[in-house]
């Protein structure tokens, strides 16, 4: 007997415009079911990052519904959206965006330092260490980001995204700065960790060679009429 998976991402009749104009994004409908590994593709300027911002509540649509992990983020106040974001979504950025003044362990635990709803206790530390170990970072916990390779830095960024046990990971070209060998290694780790935790992944990528590894492809240009 089959069952219907609840969507983690659901956008309906969304229209978004930046306040000073110049760019808008329209989404007629987008549904990403729970546990799915999805890729968002499209040329530069098509609105991939804007889509991630709408899903995560960084931006609020002018029209339409945005539902993430069962929450209508378009209806939330800015403070509630921030709170929702840090507790429910993990981010992986192309530039890693690690903090040089923190060591690897503190970088992984960084979200816990930023929000009072996330309590940093012994169990969280233990989880962070386990995560670091799973990602091959166990020996590097005391190092600074500048002492790491690009691949190691991205693994730290992945660990930081996963440490809060989010239901959704949004990755914005996470392999864009990595060489091919490291790229596949980082992706394997990301997929493995998401799968192990049944975490939904929506990843922006330009690399069409990777698309066969994703269960769902979201062509941002095809979501609705994008106007420049």
């Amino acid at each position, binding site marked *: 007997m089959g069952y219907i998976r609840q969507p983690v991402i659901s956008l309906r009749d969304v229209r978004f415009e930046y306040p000073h104009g110049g760019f808008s994004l329209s989404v007629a409908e987008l549904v990403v079911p729970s546990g799915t590994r999805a890729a968002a593709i499209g040329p530069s300027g098509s609105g991939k990052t804007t889509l991630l911002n709408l899903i995560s509540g960084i931006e609020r649509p002018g029209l339409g519904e945005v539902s993430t992990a069962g929450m209508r983020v378009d209806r939330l106040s800015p403070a509630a959206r921030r709170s929702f*974001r840090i507790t429910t979504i993990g981010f992986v950025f192309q530039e890693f*965006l690690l*903090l040089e003044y923190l060591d690897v362990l503190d970088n992984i635990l960084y979200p816990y330092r930023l929000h009072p709803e996330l309590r940093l206790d012994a169990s969280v530390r233990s989880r962070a260490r386990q995560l670091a170990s799973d990602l091959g970072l166990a020996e590097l916990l005391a190092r600074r980001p500048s002492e790491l390779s690009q691949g190691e830095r991205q693994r730290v960024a992945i660990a930081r995204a996963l440490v809060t046990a989010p239901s959704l990971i949004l990755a914005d070209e996470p392999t864009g700065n990595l060489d091919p060998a490291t790229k596949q290694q980082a992706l394997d780790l990301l997929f493995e960790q998401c799968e192990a935790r049944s975490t939904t992944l929506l990843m922006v990528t330009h690399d069409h060679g990777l698309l066969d590894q994703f269960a769902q492809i979201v062509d941002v240009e095809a979501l609705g009429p994008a106007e420049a």
Partner: protein
Amino acid sequence: MRDSIYLAWRYLRHHRTKTLLLVLSLSVFLGLPLIMRAMSHATQQSLLSRAEATPLLLGKKGSSLDLVVETLYFQLKGAEPITKADVDALQATGLALGIPIRTGLMARGFPLVGTSLDYFPFRKLRMTEGRGLAMMGECILGAEAAEALGLGPGDALLTSPSTLFDLAGVYPLKLHVVGVLEPSYGPDDAAVFVDLRTAWVAEGMGHGHQDLSSAGPDVVLKRKEGTVTANAKLVQYNEITESNVDSFHFHGDPSSYPVTAAIVVPHDEKSGVLLRGRFVDAETRQLVRPAQVVDSLNKQIFRFERVLRIVVWTVGLATAVMFVLVMVLSWRLRAEELRTMKRLGCSRWKAAQIMGSEIALMVGASVLLAGVFGIVMAQYGETWLQTLILRGS
């Protein structure tokens, strides 16, 4: 809040050079005006209290400030001396006690002060070790001098030659330490006290040598009507001992010998008024009230301090502007970090809290540093500033 402080601490620790510079600048900004004010107040009080404890000073006409500074604080050299006869004449009036003070020489870096035994009870100086002066050639050390030189009763120290390269000049005199004074937290602590006649011997105005009446022809050049002329073989004593003290003598009339000044202690108020009246029109002598002189010095210091305060506040303001500028630039450079915080879900309030914690930690460290600096200055600064003001005046 704990997390904000932790992140702020890690950031500051990582940028420790920048942090240290900012903390130092801020501590100067915060501490300097307060320390300066406290120190100058303490110094003025300390200067005044010693001056107030000295009713009158008799000295040669000239700069009353030089006279007070040299006689009370043993700092300057060069006040024109009066004579022992002046002190005797003052005593003879029956109106006051005259305590002679002879300064000018040094003993291993500390001022040598020739005086009479009356000086010690007048200044309420008590011995912590040993005994008082009993004979020529003995000295008593102030507490600070004794500690710095590591000397005590039974030890000896040499006076510093005033003319180092003059072989025919005055040779150092070996002084026997017989006592050490209790700390009085004033200029007496850093002085070496001797009897007035010992001070004259140290200056070369008196001397002791082997008995010429029994000296052989290899020493005596000529004997004529009670006058004996000796050659350089004559043994001159460079220390005064019980066995040679009788050979020490002064050529000429000791009452004409120099005294830097005399502390004048009138027997009562009326005597003081009478004495001051006698010196109002004196041509070569002056009778000054040290409290008045120091008060006018304090007014000068206060005027100088006001100017300095303006300078310090200006520097402080520049430091504060620089601090704000550095912080603003630093946050601009950290725009990426702030964006990341926002994207992860950090509130503006939390970001402000982290930045505020950085400022608070730096200001806290600066206040602490200024406090420590203040305590150190409170401990040693007064003496240091007093020396600076008196030497520079």
